[in-house]
């Protein structure tokens, strides 16, 4: 089925570990986004991408790395996880910057 899927849905890990969150979309949308959602902060943009191999930082990029070698995939890596990165992470995609962003159901990440 067409859509945007995130994996895993839930993840528990320890501080200092590397973690990769996966995002896959089947619409061939150009734009893809990573957000984190925390109580009291709403949705904050981590990184985004307008096409394969074109990415840019959002509001809270520190400690995160992204890549986009294929249009349909946009993985997010926490190189050395910290407790402050405990959050719900959402991936989204859109046809262009002024079209609807379609969100996945999120990954709930806990860092102990």
């Amino acid at each position, binding site marked *: 089925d067409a859509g945007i899927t995130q994996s895993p849905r839930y993840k528990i890990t320890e501080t200092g570990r590397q973690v990769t969150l996966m995002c896959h979309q089947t619409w061939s949308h150009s734009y893809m986004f990573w957000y984190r959602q925390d109580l009291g902060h709403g949705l904050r943009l981590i990184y985004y991408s307008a096409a394969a191999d074109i990415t840019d930082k959002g509001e809270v990029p520190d400690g995160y790395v992204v890549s986009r070698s294929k249009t349909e995939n946009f993985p997010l890596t926490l190189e050395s996880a910290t407790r402050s990165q405990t959050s719900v992470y*959402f991936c989204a995609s859109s046809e262009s910057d*002024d079209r609807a962003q379609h969100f996945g*159901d999120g990954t709930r990440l806990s860092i102990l």
Partner: protein
Amino acid sequence: QQQVKQSPQSLIVQKGGISIINCAYENTAFDYFPWYQQFPGKGPALLIAIRPDVSEKKEGRFTISFNKSAKQFSLHIMDSQPGDSATYFCAALYRGSTLGRLYFGRGTQLTVWP
């Protein structure tokens, strides 16, 4: 610095009433203003959106009012229903020298009592 300020943080409305959520911004370069609805355990979904050359947009029970001079916009939900209970986010699009991106408000948790 918060680019889009949203209020109230939470809202309780009786079934059949009108729910009103407000947002304000400072950056006049914003040129697209969407509202997103989010249910627990799900990602946000686009509800309705407006461009700054229009003062009002209506889709069913949902209306955006936009005041360009005041740099404010609001979401009105008429005849609010328990199924409207969700978190609502306003957002604004900025296209600078880099890629276009949305700035989100912090969200309003709406509860509609039956």
